């Protein structure tokens, strides 16, 4: 009783203080508020925005934990500390405390910076605009560390989060009003502002960039390069885009890609866990199955078209698009950030299409354009980010035409009557 009534009294006493939203954010986190209905419906269903957002976060936690293990594993593997784990997802060589701790100390600061900077800005804007702190950032704050390379400097992340939250969201009026997915806005800012940190073959394994710098320093100083082999931690997508021989030759490689034991952004690699998270979101009725399904269909269709182009021999194997075009169409679902983007970001209800019919079109185009960008843009083979952002912009247009269908039906009814 003590805490409950103390918090209540504190709140009542400071009702008109400017900083009350900051307190409320913590208060309502501890306790479901004592607010009651007035007129309108006197009863309300159990769900609120906090619960909804919380479900999404819970769906991401397995990806986060896996990402920590994988970060450590990829680091140790690249530095030659351990051998390739055999046995895939269930390998005891993968799930070691040692792997986890490396990843943990790398990822945790990213999570803290993401939430710290983002929530601070949210609270400031809530105070300025005199409304409660809305929960949208709870999901964004978790998404951001999952979609960046492991070695992303914290200051960069902080700058990007500030940009993304202010420009991507608050200028439009905050949660529920934004046009672009804030997490992807942050990712896009990072990508275009600091490209060397966001792509290439040095950023996906923790320490690879550091090793390169050490080599450069050693070269400069003319000291011995013993034990300073450059580390390549190329992603599958990266190598395909370079027309290098596929890293998905054997069934074992494919399984590893499915399990997520491959280099990549922290949370995006494990298609298995993302698939489970997607099923969880659909089951809880929080995520849109329409978008997830249609997006996968869109990607497969585009992949098939490219495969068709290759098998009709319209392009030669010397073409710079050959590597990705010839990738069997269903491999596209396993590699890169496609699965993660589809499940967690294309489905953002604010920036996606809002009508059910629109969701089919929107999702399909997200998948379709993702693979198109992936194949045609070797400089940045991950198309899903740009595809979702692009479709975010077009989502209101899609909705407009869907709703116009309903409006036209109404006008037609009127015409029939008056005719």
């Amino acid at each position: 009783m003590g805490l409950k009534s103390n918090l209540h009294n504190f709140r009542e006493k400071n009702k008109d203080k400017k900083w009350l939203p900051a307190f409320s954010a913590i208060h309502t986190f501890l306790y479901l508020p004592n607010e009651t209905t007035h007129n309108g419906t006197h009863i309300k269903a159990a769900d609120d925005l906090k619960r909804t957002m919380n479900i999404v976060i819970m769906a991401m936690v397995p990806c986060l934990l896996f990402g920590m293990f994988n970060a450590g594993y990829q680091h140790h593997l690249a530095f030659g500390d351990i051998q390739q784990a055999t046995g895939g997802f269930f390998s005891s060589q993968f799930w070691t405390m040692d792997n986890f701790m490396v990843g943990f100390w790398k990822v945790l600061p990213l999570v803290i910076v993401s939430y710290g900077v983002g929530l601070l800005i949210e609270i400031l804007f809530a105070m300025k605009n005199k409304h409660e702190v809305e929960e949208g950032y709870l999901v964004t704050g978790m998404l951001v560390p999952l979609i960046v390379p492991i070695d992303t400097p914290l200051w960069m992340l902080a700058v990007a989060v500030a940009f993304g939250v202010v420009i991507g969201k608050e200028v439009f009026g905050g949660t529920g009003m934004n046009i672009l997915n804030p997490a992807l806005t942050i990712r896009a800012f990072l990508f275009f502002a600091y490209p060397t940190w966001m792509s290439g073959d040095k950023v996906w394994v923790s320490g690879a960039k550091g090793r390169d710098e050490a080599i450069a320093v050693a070269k400069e100083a003319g000291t011995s390069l013993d034990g300073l082999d450059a580390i390549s931690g190329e992603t599958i997508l990266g190598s395909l885009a370079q027309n290098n021989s596929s890293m998905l030759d054997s069934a074992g490689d494919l399984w590893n890609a499915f399990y997520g034991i491959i280099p990549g952004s922290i949370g995006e690699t494990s298609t298995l866990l993302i698939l489970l998270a997607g099923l969880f979101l659909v089951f809880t009725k929080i995520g849109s199955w329409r978008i997830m399904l249609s997006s996968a269909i869109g990607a497969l269709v585009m992949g098939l078209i490219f495969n068709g182009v290759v098998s009709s021999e319209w392009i030669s194997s010397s073409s710079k698009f050959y590597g990705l075009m010839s990738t069997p169409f269903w491999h596209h679902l396993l590699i890169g950030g496609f699965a993660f983007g589809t499940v967690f970001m294309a489905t953002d209800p604010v920036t996606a299409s809002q009508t059910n019919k629109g969701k089919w079109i929107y999702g399909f185009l997200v998948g379709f354009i993702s693979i198109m960008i992936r194949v045609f843009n070797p400089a940045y083979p991950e198309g899903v980010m740009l595809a979702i952002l692009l479709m975010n912009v077009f989502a209101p247009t899609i909705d407009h035409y869907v709703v116009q269908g309903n409006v036209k039906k109404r006008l037609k009814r009127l015409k029939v009557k008056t005719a």
Partner: protein
Amino acid sequence: MSKDIKIKKGLDIKLVGEADKTVEQAIVSNFCTIRPEDFHSVIPKLIAKEGTRVKAGDVLFYNKDIEAMKFVSPVSGEIVEIERGPRRRIDAIKIQADKPQSHKDFGKFNMNSDAASTKAHLLASGCWAFIKQRPYDVIANPEKSPKSIFISGLSTAPLAADLDFVLAGKEEALQAAVSALSKLTEGQVHIGVGSNNSPLASMNDATIHNVSGPHPAGNVGTHINKLDPVNKGETVWTVNAQDLVVIGELLLTGKFNAERIVALAGSSVKKPRYFKTIIGSEVATMIYDNGVEKGGNDRIISGNVLSGKQLKPDGSLGFYDNVLTVIPEGDDYEFFGWNKPVFNKISTSRAFTFSWLNPKKKYELNTNTNGEHRAFVVTGSYEKVFPLDIYPMQILKACKYEDLDEMEALGMYEVAPEDFALTEFICVSKQPHQDIIRKGLDLMLKEIG
């Protein structure tokens, strides 16, 4: 031609405290209160003054815009108080009821009369107030002729009075009212019934439709949308089934008999049952002797839990309501209430809310909002409980930014606030949908008329 209505989208909210099917005579209320705000958008012009003695059926006030539209006293007695609000707005007219009631005699109505005299009779006797219209969900404008008239013979709202039960034995009055109404439209009188046991199922001069499905299958708005949606420039009228009885009795006997059977329901009521009482009666005459704790922390609602009006303990039964619901207030905090698994509340999601496991369970819900007001975020959930061929979120947003063209295009002429009760109930952002729609309709009424 009869057409069955079968809806799939919707939600039956099952609550504890359904009224037992027994009728008791309520204690006769000493006071009867009429609140002009029950008659949305009517500006009352008072005829009666404090101290005037009236019979049941005598005019209390009329509509300032349409003088022929009278509003009459449900009881005989003395007007003891006229409560006024800001700018001398009339909030309530309080009548101290006589013990033996006397009624004004309007005379037995000749059922063969034409439309004009039927209209005049209903207007003069105060019965016009029972006829509402769409668009705008206000009392019907007698100068317009409706393309059809809709009556819902079933109620699917949570804890609603069972219309088959309360209308039983009133067939004669119902038929008189339906026949009279059928003269007022060039189209048909559509009656939706839940089963053939309904006293309304055998009405003449009307088209009977079988209706099935979850709530809002019983809402008249659903029937209109499925059978004969309102286009721009058209009007349909609606009448509550129970109010037909008052109209019918007036036509048959010449008396304005405001008696009605009201369900007392809700989880705070120990002995939920039906009462025979009079429009405007004090609710205290019914609730406290039947297990509602005096001074308890309860919400008393005139009407159902979705669209009813909150009453104070000394409040009175609303003009159109046939159910009184009493449920516990929810003004308490709940530790980690936003993320712990929920078994005792209703939800349409499965976000660690488990009402989907047991669809037959009855719940004891309180008035807690279960979360704070937020911007619209979640999409696609309203459509699952909204059977009308209208985009609910888009029309709500159009109302919020007051775009009249868009409101019109999206179907604003077809809706009433109660159609948005379920979307409001499930709204994750806790937006006041019915209020948004009411304000939107008021704006259109003012700007377009």
